[in-house]
């Protein structure tokens, strides 16, 4: 259980998040990917807070808390927008929402 373990897990999570964002043709799946990314970030911060910074310094954890908060807010707005999209376009497939281009 070294720092690197956590970092590797986090890196994998990040990559999977990116993968989801890039390949999933579904807005909600993209949101899930984003959540994975944010989780990986939080995990990083906590891990660094545990291993890199002095024990009494828990800045990393606090950043992670804010990260969770922001993720929640973002998710809320994201879903609201997805609903709006669904209303307007009848689909939440990102490739079908492409009237603006060029």
């Amino acid at each position, binding site marked *: 259980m070294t720092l690197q373990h956590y970092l590797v897990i986090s890196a994998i999570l990040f990559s999977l998040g990116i993968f989801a964002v890039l390949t999933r*043709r579904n807005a909600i799946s993209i949101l899930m990917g984003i959540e994975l990314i944010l989780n990986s970030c939080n995990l990083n911060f906590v891990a660094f807070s545990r291993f890199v910074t002095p024990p009494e310094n828990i800045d990393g954890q606090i950043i992670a808390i804010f990260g969770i908060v922001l993720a929640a807010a973002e998710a809320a707005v994201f879903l609201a927008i997805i609903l709006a999209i669904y209303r307007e376009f009848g689909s939440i497939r*990102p490739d079908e929402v*492409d009237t*603006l*281009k*060029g």
Partner: protein
Amino acid sequence: MVVLLISIILLAPLTAFAIHALLGLAKQGFPRQDILSTFAMLVAFICSILLFWQIAPDPKPHTIDWISLGSITFSMGFYLDSVTVIMLIVVTLVSSLVHIFSIGYMHGDPRYPRFFAFLSLFSFSMLFLVVSDNLLGIYIGWELVGLCSYLLIGFWFEKDSAADACKKAFLTTRVGDVGMFVGMMMLFTRFKTLSLYDGADAGIFTLVEGLSGTGDMIWLSIAGVLIFCGAVGKSAQVPLHTWLPDAMEGPTPVSALIHAATMVAAGVYLTARMFPILTTSSSLVIAYVGGITAIVAATIAIVRFDIKRVLAYSTVSQLGFMMLAIGVGSYVAGLFHLTTHAFFKALLFLGSGSVIHAFHAMHSHHDEEHSDDGEHDHGLIHEHGSEIPPDQDMRNMGGLRRKMPLTFITMLIATLSISGVPFIFSGFWSKDKILGGVLERAMEWNSIHHYILFVVALIAAGITAFYMFRLIFMTFFGVPQNQEMHEMAHESPWVMTVPLLVLAFLSIPVVNPLWFNKDYVKPPEQHHIHAPEHAQVLPDSKTRNSDFSFAFLGVSDAHAAEGEEDGHAADAHHAHSPAHSIAMILSIIVAGVGILLSWLFYHKRRFSAEAVSTAFRPVYNLFWNKYYFDEFYDGVLVALTVWKSRLFAQFDGSIVDGIVNGVGTVTRDVFAAFTGFFDNSVVDGLVNRIAEITWAAGGRIRRLQTGAIQTYLFVVVGGIVLIILIFRVL
């Protein structure tokens, strides 16, 4: 006094021109403006006569600074020596007479005042050229006379042939002028001045002495030949002679004044002026050009039927004689022939004008509309002499001597003069002097070149006699070929005949005051003339032994007993060299033969010209087609120029743009290899092309902007990865 007189000479015609121009601009012109110009010329003439007594023994130029640029100063000024005065008198006299003649000849032309305006401008320019003491001034006058020639040839511009001819004249002479300008540049670059004579600073003639034997002779030769190019153009020497016959499209007085007596002689004058810088090589070039011109033009003249064309080729031929004279160093002979030729050739032209006028007036009776109509008889014109206006066609004439006795007599005198009928006609003396000069040079240097030239000149002289008498016989003798025209022909009014009489008078040396004074004109030193190395150098001739001063004016000093001067009392000098005696005898013989043949062919009809021409068809064709010069120029040079300019225009449209296009296409194709598709829009224009490439790039970037958010995210993540990888690699 000199300055004052010269100023008057110059200003009189200039003022006349200015008044004409202002009146014209204000649309206030009136017909009697002719008096103005004529009066101005007479004033100039009188002043020129007065100048005769003002020639200083050691003339200095009268200059003012024209342009000063730091270390360089271009000055303008007058230089007055005997040659100047002779030229002034010749020009003003002929010009005055032509003015007077024109009053009759141009009568009734709708642009009558304009004609006199141009004549005045021409006179001014010509006089300016004559009196200038420096090359720049000469060049200015040079071009201005060219302009006037242009304007006057194209005076009846409604005729396409006139419009063509004037353009051709200007352009052809300009080709020569450019050569002259290059020559000037060479001289200027070397000497840092364009003044010929020593004023405040040393002039070119002094400076050029310093070059003797410095190995710069080739350079100087080239410069000399280039300056001579100007003369080739103006004096219609081969190969730039073709404009002069076409220039006959102008009114006949113009032909007489500009294209016979003065402007075309300016080339000879220039060459004579530049005599001191001519080297052996450049002299030889000049001599050859002169000689070839003399024979070529003479042969062409034989077969012309247009009376003015015959005279035009004759002029070319005679100018060739003059050039030949200067080329062989017979400076005085050249200038002498210039003056005699000015009178008798002007006379011939005016006489032909009188004939044409007679016929022309007849036409006018037929066709009351005179000139307002573009289709009047001047409109029936010909390309390269193939169509001849009926009033100029000698085949329509004949037997006019009774109808126009004065014209006939005067023209006969001129013809005798030009043919070199001995002793009582000026032409004989001057032509003989040229032939003598050539032969003398040939003997002196034992130079094969000069022997050839002598033979050529001799033949040309004979042909001259032949075709001139052909003209006389066809026009004035025999039976009228066109009875109707003949009926209508009449003697010209006095304003036209008086000038003829004056000129005829001047063609008889006895009464010509200009060459009374022996030792009057003395050649300047020609510093660079050396016998060609292969030539056997004879003991130095007397041309060079006595006086090294630059004075053109022969102060009548006892030593100036050179073999080449003065015409009237020439016999005395012929003793000095056998050449002149031989030349004289030979020239009399060839003239006689020429006249005799002409008599046999065209008067007695003993031989048929047609038969001869059929027998020698190729030769005849060559002559008839004027050695194909025009065809050559049209076919090659003009086509080349036009083609080239088309090419350039094409180039502008396609090559310059094409290069960009090419670059663009390559870029586009490379681009396309990546993106897989591109549009094949046709493009032209550099900016269009660049714009299009840019647009295409913009379009491609646009296409990347698919509207699908995941594409964008691909770009983001891909961008990140790429940035990292690239910077890692770097």
